[in-house]
């Protein structure tokens, strides 16, 4: 896990190669590129991504491709403090 500078902002994850946000000339943030729903299929490469993470008392940055050479179980879930 790479270090993550801890600030008051809320950093987010993104597919590698696509910047999540950029500052527009008005100072507002906007999506640089609309992320569209895609379909990941078995037998195909898992899209690489990078996202902020919490682990073992620390904040950091996690990149999927750093795990090449290992099996990875990627688990999405609806939300913290939900019931199941």
């Amino acid at each position, binding site marked *: 896990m790479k270090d993550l500078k801890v600030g008051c902002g*809320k950093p987010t*994850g993104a597919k590698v190669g696509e910047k999540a946000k950029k500052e527009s000339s008005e100072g507002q943030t906007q999506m640089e590129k609309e992320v569209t729903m895609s379909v990941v299929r078995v037998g*195909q490469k*898992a899209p690489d991504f990078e996202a*902020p993470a919490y682990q073992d008392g620390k904040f950091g940055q996690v990149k999927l491709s750093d795990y090449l050479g*290992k099996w990875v*179980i990627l688990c*999405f*879930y609806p*939300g913290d403090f939900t019931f199941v």
Partner: protein
Amino acid sequence: MAAVASKYKEIQELGAEILSVSVDSHFVHKMWQDNELSKMVDGGVPFPMLSDGPGNVGKVYGVYDENAGVEMRGRFIIDPDGVVQAIETLTPPVGRNVAELIRQVKAFQHVRKTKGAEATPSGWQPGKPTLTPGPDLVGKVWEVWKVGEAF
């Protein structure tokens, strides 16, 4: 997530790592860990809990629910080459079966070890018979594998 965490050691021994992802911030992940998960499983969740606020990663993986603004219970098994081997997606009210996840990882690892020469039939567990696809097996699965092996 606590159920997955409770089997972390076994999963790690298989040479696998777990990454969990939700739209919650990494700050909320810490609060969930401190206030609830650590009380459900000894030591709490030991693997990285990723934050994907606007669902950028979830959209790429096809599990982001735009109407609810959350990610569905999608689970992907990715092999050491970065290739997706298995996908399971559940709607929020039904939880995963961690034992089945571990079974699938073991089955994919077995197939990989044999470089694809062997296939694992339904319900396969380590120690159970595998199948070796080839001309001699066509129409003969019934002779070498019984349905009872699946359970």
